[in-house]
């Protein structure tokens, strides 16, 4: 190990980058079971090493990759595979919009890099930080986002490779399937700060469960849309009552 740079000597953006790396590090845990499983099932499904790696590197979106692979195994039409997988990713348009107030002023090429790295873990971790620290400058926010992505992205890609080569998934008895729900809940729970957040989360859960049978992520989109509207309306209603 090299010596860690002293915090006092670092520029604010460097500090933000290292803070992001620290906050992103736990999510490498999540990449282990899911990256390996994706590697294993993509080879089982008949993809070559290059195709499986290409998938992971070009798309980097676990849920959509699994959805696409499932449909490919069933020999669905190419158009349907694409439509379903992209529907699973549509929630990320909401992520993209949510980042505008924080990162909109950054140069276009930086925003394009962020877009490539904008998935659940990086988005939620970064937006939580931006909300908690409104004084952050745009370069600090950028650096933080890249910091969060730094440990997560290579481990997701690397673990896919391990899965391809090892060809063996982690035994189910380890219950690693539940790492993902635990991590997502752990990310979102600290963000529940007001009655409006509670109401939004409750609507998200109930609509999400009610529409679970709808194809490829469309139920989740409706759940998320209704939950956002609920949160915003509760907020407006509370402001009116306070006046």
């Amino acid at each position, binding site marked *: 190990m090299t010596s860690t740079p002293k915090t006092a000597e670092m520029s604010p953006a460097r500090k933000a980058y290292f803070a992001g790396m620290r906050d992103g590090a736990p999510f490498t845990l999540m990449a282990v079971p899911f990256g390996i499983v994706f590697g294993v099932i993509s080879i089982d499904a008949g993809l070559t090493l290059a195709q499986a790696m290409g998938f992971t590197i070009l798309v980097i979106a676990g849920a959509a990759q699994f959805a696409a692979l499932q449909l490919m195994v069933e020999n669905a039409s190419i158009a349907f595979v694409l439509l379903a997988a992209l529907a699973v990713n549509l929630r990320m348009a909401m992520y993209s919009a949510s980042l505008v107030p924080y990162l909109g002023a950054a140069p276009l090429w930086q925003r394009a890099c962020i877009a490539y790295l904008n998935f659940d873990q990086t988005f939620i971790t970064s937006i939580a930080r931006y909300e908690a620290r409104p004084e952050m400058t745009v370069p600090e926010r950028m650096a933080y986002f890249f910091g969060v992505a730094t440990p997560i992205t290579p481990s997701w890609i690397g673990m896919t490779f391990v899965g391809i080569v090892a060809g063996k998934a982690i035994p189910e008895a380890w219950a690693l399937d539940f790492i993902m729900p635990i991590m997502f809940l752990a990310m979102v729970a600290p963000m529940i700060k007001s009655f409006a957040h509670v109401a939004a989360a409750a609507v998200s859960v109930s609509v999400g469960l009610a529409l679970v049978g709808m194809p490829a992520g469309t139920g989740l989109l409706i759940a*998320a849309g209704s939950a956002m509207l609920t949160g915003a309306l509760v907020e407006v209603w509370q402001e009116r009552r306070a006046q």
Partner: protein
Amino acid sequence: MTYTTAEIWTIIVIMGIGTFLIRFSFLGLIGDRPMPAFVLRLLRYTPVAVLPGMVAPLVLWPVATDGVFDPVRMMAAIATVLIGVWTRNVLWAIIGGAVTLYAAMGITALI
């Protein structure tokens, strides 16, 4: 799977481009132009609107148990949320949830 190599690469590349465009969409096109106040209000709820709905089915009907309700996983989920709300710390919530999961699995294995 009966696709040709070219078809598989078509799927991968279009999915990659499509996913990028979805992620780039608003951030890329709006830039630093101001957004309407109500839209900003809506967007403040994105994380709490997306993640709970995404996770709820996995908690109630876990994939590993073929969709059969599992009290152990339910307990772990509840512990994660409570610790997360209480400590406001992602790491503690993950640790608390994982410890609950494996402790409860250990106890049920002994019974």
